[in-house]
């Protein structure tokens, strides 16, 4: 089962390596991982997408909680939540393709953020599925380079993950 776990960690050197190391050491999957400082400069927020049986997910959350640097965590997939991923994608854009790419980007509410005579760089946000769909729509043969941020997420409603 795919889960999105949001973790508040102390903004300390080595904290990230403890978390990544835990996943490697205990043979847990990491599908994606994002991390950045928060509005509280002593904390970083990390979002990890993982996959496993319910008892494995339970162990993952328990083992993460055991790390001294982990302050708090929540499994976002347990409730209603919003997930987003950012993609920057460089595609061929010449001749008839140029207008076609522009139209497709508009449909997906993407923005063209860099232009050359033969190449568009499109910025797109959404769920992983939406980003996959865009790649399909423009056609893999036109894709030159893709960079994706990995998933970040937040719970819907009044629930907040904070100290």
């Amino acid at each position, binding site marked *: 089962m795919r889960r999105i776990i949001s973790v508040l960690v*102390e903004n300390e*050197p*080595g904290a990230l*390596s*403890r978390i990544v*190391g835990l996943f490697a*050491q205990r043979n847990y999957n990491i599908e994606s991982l994002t991390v950045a400082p928060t509005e509280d400069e002593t904390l970083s927020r990390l979002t990890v997408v993982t996959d496993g049986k319910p*008892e494995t997910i*339970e*162990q993952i959350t*328990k*083992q993460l*909680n*055991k790390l*001294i*640097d*982990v*302050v*708090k965590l929540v499994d976002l997939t347990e409730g209603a939540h919003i997930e987003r991923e950012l993609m920057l994608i460089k595609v061929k854009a010449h001749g008839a393709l140029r207008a076609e790419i522009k139209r497709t980007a508009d449909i997906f509410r993407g923005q063209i953020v860099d232009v050359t005579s033969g190449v568009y760089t499109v910025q797109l946000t959404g769920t992983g599925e939406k980003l996959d769909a865009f790649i399909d729509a423009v056609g893999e043969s036109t894709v030159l380079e893709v960079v994706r941020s990995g998933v970040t997420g937040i719970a819907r409603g009044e629930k907040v993950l904070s*100290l």
Partner: protein
Amino acid sequence: MTEGKQVELLSGADMVVRALADEGVEYIYGYPGGALLHVYDAIFRQDKITHILVRHEQAATHMADGYARSSGKAGVALVTSGPGATNTITGIATAYMDSIPMVVLSGQVPSRFIGTDMFQETDMVGISRPIVKHSFLVKRAEDIPEVIKKAFYIAQTGRPGPVVVDLPKDITDLTKKFPYEYPGKVKIRSYNPPQKGHTGQIRKAVDLLMKARRPIIYAGGGVVLGDASDQLTRLAKQTGVPVTNTLMGLGSYPGTDDQFVGMLGMHGSYTANLAMHHSDLVLAVGVRFDDRVTNSTSKFCPTAKIVHVDIDPASIAKTVPVDVPIVGPVLSVLKEMNDLAVASAGAQDKEALSNWWKQINEWRSGQGGLFPYETAEGIIKPQQVVQALYEVTKNDDAYITTDVGQHQMFAAQHYLFNKPNRWITSGGLGTMGFGLPAAMGVKLHNPDATVACVTGEGSIQMNIQELSTCRQYDLGVKVINLNNQALGMVRQWQTMQYSSRYSHSYMESLPDFKKLVEAYGHVGITVTEAKDLMPAMEEAFSLKDRLVFLDVAVDTNEHVYPMQIKDGSMRDMWLTKTERT
């Protein structure tokens, strides 16, 4: 800094040593080197802490570990950067697997050179990361007192474990001084070990325990670490429930008591393993359902409800599903259970319990005791040596350490511990070379105590250099070497599962241990005849202040039984070489 109060100015190196003293540390075990020279100079200039110079850094960690297991307080090792640090890894992992409080202070190259592959540089925080409870790389000298306070706090609270503090050489600079104050306590917002179990869950557990018809208490190292032996004994006594101990839990319940059915698991007693298998309620306290206990988890205790008490939530339902989980310190949880059990004593089905005991006693007497074995004319059986050791030391409140292998299992089976913290063995990691330095750590802190290391000729050679340390500090430990001229446990598996192809389990060119220990300035006694065993054992322990190495030639072909059969349930065991359940 308190205003008006005279504030002491200390260098980083002096702060390290002073902080340890203020933490109440008496002994540290270590080995100097370039990155630690400032700290060693600070040690030279004070007299609050005694430094013990080991011969190999691994032994420093095992000494700290042995002390910790016997006292419940964190042991401290001090090692230099690079190889000094890497040599501690086995000792740190040993402590980690058995949840032993330990603080390892490692030297590091100066901050500005970190990452340049400087002479004797290694990423200690990185290399130890998977085997520590936590670690610190100290960045500023001013932080030293607080970091050391935090290290001890983390190591000794909750589920204990080792903590590494890496000290770059520049922060210990003797010429730079800082105001020193040792914090009385520290708070770490992200670390709040549980203080109490959930009362509703505890009530449920007691209810199940009182209603059970075939209950058993399965108690482990957590009871020893959590200082809960008295409460465990009280609960067992007032409910009349049988008790089995894990390897790590030996001593948490009196080994000579009739309600004790022996160790359980791979080499556990027939009685304990059968009682577990047939029970309808397992009260698991301070245990982790280790593979050496459960055998196949899918066949584990098929008719039992399981109550699991542990301070570490990650231990619960890790390998075996649990019916009533209770997260909390075993001491307070058992105390609550005891109080509730008194109130609901009437609920117990005494008749069912008495039938259960009838069954257990049949298993026990049918086997001729918990760990039966056959003796043979003209051969010393390793079990006989452990029994002789027990006979000679049983009234001395002795501490027994072991190495790893057959001798460890024989000691666990045949030495009966009536108190916690007396049985000191590497259970989780199974570290050969642990026994002698661990015994040294115990002896140093308990100079009048009887301390013996049960070992084998394989294990003892993994840290035999420490005989030199024993000489330097007059550590009169006794070493009981069950010398079967083979790596016994490996050989046993090769006999049973590899058609007796003894691949590298045979040791050629063993030293003459008597001469060897004499060369180190100790007493060596060799025993080859059964009739000499008891007199030699008595002689060894009569030489109170000397290290005596008793080298006993034991049967090479003896196996440890019972031995659980792979992929089976708890009751599937080999009982002798030819007989199985």
